[in-house]
């Protein structure tokens, strides 16, 4: 039951249940590793046990003789991956996706690098045989310690080559302003490496249908980009590669790329001439599919005694591998968030002997806004000003970076609604001043923002002879409920009940759509579905107009309503004409349209962002320093909410991820070995049931008329941005202790007595 008090949506009860709810609760949803094939072979990866060096020998004789083994693949017997060419592995940093080539040579770039693959009849046989492979290495000195190597950080080579890169050094206004500020804070914030760890481990089944025809069932966030990548790597015509990813057990960014293990599995399937399945063990999920990079940020803020920000400098340094760049938005939010005339940002990269990071929910912004919003809280405390009041006094009425009007911004309303729901006015200004039942009580808040992303998308909409509707697009659902939202868009326009609509996704043979990332699915694919359904509606109205029944002879869609697949003219509300009858009359088996939707000149006329804020209450034990999140209120302005029920779940999910980021998540490396110590859920802690309270989700729910035809800006990323800061700020309010290095563990609160 949706608690109405938690809702700003006028019609929450009209939300659709998840269209794939039934298959998910009955176990019938088929994820990548679950497609049945006769003669399916099972693969197990063997990974390097050193962080840098080269392989001197791989002893596979015993493994090769083990029962059931079909192949042991490594660089020693790799027949060649055509798209890799004959170039040497790049010794210097290369753009993303071109650097590391699996089973290419014996060079080791990081601990956990895949170096061989055993393929056998069964999983058990493959695991056993993998234990029989012996590898010798020539070890070189590795560098994995971020702090120790920080001075080596540089401007990324791709940024050096591109004057228009947003990661160029940025200065606006007058740097002198900092010197003249009444109040100054200067602090360093650290977030450790954090891993996506979706509950479903990455998995693939590779099937060569013919020598030049490949089908992969793969956990990824973009079937079209995966199709393109695999076609390039294996030098196949794009249309000969099919990628199926209908159900994805979470990803949060880990599936945006085609990773080396996927390529290795496709290669193995080619070698053994059978379908091959690989499921990454949980321990490999720490070294195979990217992570949120370790990042150090220095922020200096100057403010007037009236609480106006006079200057901000924000320097961020992120970690990447020795072989590849990975850039994040870390410092970019600072340029747009507040009305501050003097802002400087710097962004640097540090190459270490680790695997390449990738985007993780709210990439860059979740990191950057932890620092900026913590720093704002420090400024508020220095000024003895309410943290929310400080943000209101520095509200940016237009984009201070691009000097453009916002397409829409209701952040002030977010603050107001959130604060009221939370009871922010009951917060006392001084830390350690609120107590309840022997616990220290802290109220914290933070703002959030996320840039708007929309990519060209296509959708096909079909009315079948029986009056049901099929909508198709090669989009994805990693969990937010893409099919449900698209069904709602189609249902509204075509006047058909949800149960009579089928939405197809996760198949590269469907109409073009972007991958699921950057909160772009609803803005991009939702727009395409909207346009396709409108077009289909007009087409069927035109067909109705040509029928002898006079009511529909003037095909003005605005005068026609549709209910349950039946058209009604405003002139005659009694007599309708059904989709079934229209198709039957015209002797059509079905009626379909395919439409494309993309951005226009509005992208240069407005600055487009989503905004929001989070309010958090924590209780901290004065005895043990244990932090418990007791209450969260989040409010987002993301334009029009398409389906309230699934949107709310997405917001809650972002908060839960943010609580994990704030209080428990850290991938800890043993630098003597250059190896993660945290390789499972017992050591890499993510929130569990007992960590998460009820969460209030509020939306402004007003369409942003400038961004796209549906007025919706996407939600997944902004849901987590700022959450960690709101928690950290609440912990400061409870304890008086400012923790600037995540996660906020007990030991960081007990360095001195609280």
């Amino acid at each position, binding site marked *: 039951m949706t608690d109405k008090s938690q809702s700003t949506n006028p019609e929450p009860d009209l939300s659709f249940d998840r269209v794939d709810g039934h298959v998910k609760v009955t176990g019938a949803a088929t994820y990548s590793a679950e497609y049945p094939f006769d003669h399916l072979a099972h693969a197990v990866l063997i990974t390097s046990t050193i962080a840098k060096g080269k392989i001197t020998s791989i002893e596979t004789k015993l493994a090769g003789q083990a029962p059931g083994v079909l192949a042991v693949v490594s660089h020693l017997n790799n027949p060649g991956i055509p798209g890799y060419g004959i170039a040497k592995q790049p010794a210097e940093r290369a753009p993303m996706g071109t650097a590391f080539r699996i089973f290419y040579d014996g060079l080791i770039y990081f601990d956990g690098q895949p170096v061989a693959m055993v393929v056998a009849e069964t999983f058990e046989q493959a695991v056993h045989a993998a234990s029989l492979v012996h590898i010798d290495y020539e070890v070189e000195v590795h560098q994995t310690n971020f702090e120790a190597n920080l001075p080596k950080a540089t401007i990324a080579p791709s940024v050096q080559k591109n004057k228009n890169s947003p990661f160029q050094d940025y200065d606006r206004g007058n740097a002198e302003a900092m010197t003249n500020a009444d109040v100054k804070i200067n602090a360093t914030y650290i977030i450790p490496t954090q891993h996506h760890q979706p509950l479903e481990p990455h998995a693939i089944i590779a099937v060569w249908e013919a020598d030049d025809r490949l089908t992969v069932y793969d956990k990824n966030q973009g079937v079209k980009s995966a199709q393109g990548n695999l076609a390039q790597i294996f030098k196949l015509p794009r249309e000969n590669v099919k990628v199926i990813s209908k159900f994805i057990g979470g990803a949060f960014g880990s599936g945006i790329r085609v990773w080396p293990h996927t390529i290795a599995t496709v290669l193995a399937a080619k070698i053994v001439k059978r379908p091959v399945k690989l499921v990454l063990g949980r321990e490999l999920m720490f070294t195979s599919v990217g992570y949120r990079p370790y990042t150090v940020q220095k922020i200096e803020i100057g403010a007037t005694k009236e609480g106006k920000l006079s200057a901000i400098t924000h320097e961020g340094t992120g970690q990447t591998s020795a072989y590849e760049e990975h850039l994040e938005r870390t410092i970019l939010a600072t340029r747009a968030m507040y009305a501050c005339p003097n802002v400087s940002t710097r962004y640097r990269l540090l190459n270490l002997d680790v695997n390449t990071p990738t985007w993780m929910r709210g990439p860059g912004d979740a990191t950057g806004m932890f620092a900026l919003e913590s720093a704002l809280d420090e400024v508020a405390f220095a000024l003895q000003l309410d943290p929310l009041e400080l943000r209101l006094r520095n509200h940016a009425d237009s984009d201070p970076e691009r000097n453009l009007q916002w397409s829409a911004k209701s952040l002030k309303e977010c603050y107001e609604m959130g604060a009221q729901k939370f009871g922010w006015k009951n917060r006392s200004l001084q830390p350690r001043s609120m107590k309840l039942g022997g616990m220290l009580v802290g109220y914290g808040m933070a703002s959030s923002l996320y840039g708007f992303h929309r990519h060209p998308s296509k959708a096909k909409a079909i009315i079948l002879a029986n009056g049901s509707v099929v909508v198709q697009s090669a989009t994805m659902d990693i969990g937010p409920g893409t099919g449900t939202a698209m069904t709602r868009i189609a249902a509204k326009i075509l006047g058909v009940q949800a149960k009579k609509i089928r939405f197809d996704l996760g198949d590269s043979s469907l109409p073009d759509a972007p991958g699921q990332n950057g909160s772009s699915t609803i803005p991009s694919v939702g727009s395409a579905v909207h346009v396709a359904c409108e077009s289909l509606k007009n087409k069927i109205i035109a067909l109705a107009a040509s029928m002898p029944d006079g009511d529909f002879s003037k095909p003005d869609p605005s005068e026609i309503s549709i209910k349950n697949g039946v058209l009604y003219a405003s002139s005659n509300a009694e007599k309708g004409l059904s989709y079934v009858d229209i198709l039957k009359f015209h002797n059509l088996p079905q009626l379909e349209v395919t439409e494309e939707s993309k951005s226009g000149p509005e992208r240069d006329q407005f600055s487009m962002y989503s905004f929001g804020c989070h309010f958090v209450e924590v209780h901290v034990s004065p005895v043990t320093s244990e932090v418990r999140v007791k209450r969260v209120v989040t409010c987002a302005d993301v334009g029009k909410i398409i389906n309230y029920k699934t949107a709310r779940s997405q917001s809650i999910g972002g908060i839960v991820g943010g609580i994990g980021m704030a209080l428990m998540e850290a991938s800890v490396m043993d630098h003597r070995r250059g190896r993660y110590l945290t390789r499972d859920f017992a050591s890499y802690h993510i929130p569990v*049931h007992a960590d998460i309270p009820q969460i209030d989700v509020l939306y402004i729910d007003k369409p942003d008329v400038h961004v796209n035809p549906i007025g919706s800006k996407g939600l997944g990323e902004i849901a987590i941005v700022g959450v960690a800061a709101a928690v950290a700020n609440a912990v400061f309010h409870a304890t008086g202790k400012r923790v600037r290095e995540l996660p906020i563990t007990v030991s960081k609160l007990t360095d001195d007595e609280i």
Partner: protein
Amino acid sequence: MEENTKAADDTLDPLQEDRRFFLKQSVAFAGLSLAPANLLRSGDWDSEDIPIGNAEKVKLALTVNGVRKRISIDPRTTLLDLLREQLRLTGTKKGCDFGQCGACTVHVDGHRMLSCLSFAVMQHGKKITTIEGLSSGDQLHPLQEAFIKHDGFQCGYCTPGQLMSAVSCIREGQAGSEVEIQEYMSGNLCRCGAYPNIVNAITEVKNSGRKV
């Protein structure tokens, strides 16, 4: 390799019927570490019972979702892999394979258990219920309905495990309050963060008094 019979009477002890299997298997286990594998081979086992890896296939009988099954398997196979790879019951999920995430939760003789932490051969004679066996026919289990209504999932991967645990949580009498539910469901991780919705779903079913 697999033989199904419908379990007509749930109260029937499969051990009785499968005593012949059981004795043979016990001998095989006892001998595994003592005798060369080829000495253990029984003449009446079918042609699939060839040595694999360092192990020899063993037979077991168990009831899965009301269907009695006789299977010969690699003794290294976990209950989870038996369900997913051999019985093609992929509703039970492999999340971590270390017993740390709860995605593989099934019921063994009515109690929740992590199927990744049990070898299949340890379940001889047991009654296994997986997510596929939770509902009866087209009628969803009350908790399945409540999960849909409260949107107790996003990606759906942890969902079968959450549901199997939720059933046990109520049956065990550990769903008396929100806090109690949170505590007794904490072995089931959800990375999408559907926790509050899951707790609301369990609370509603518990309070409804419906049989789970």
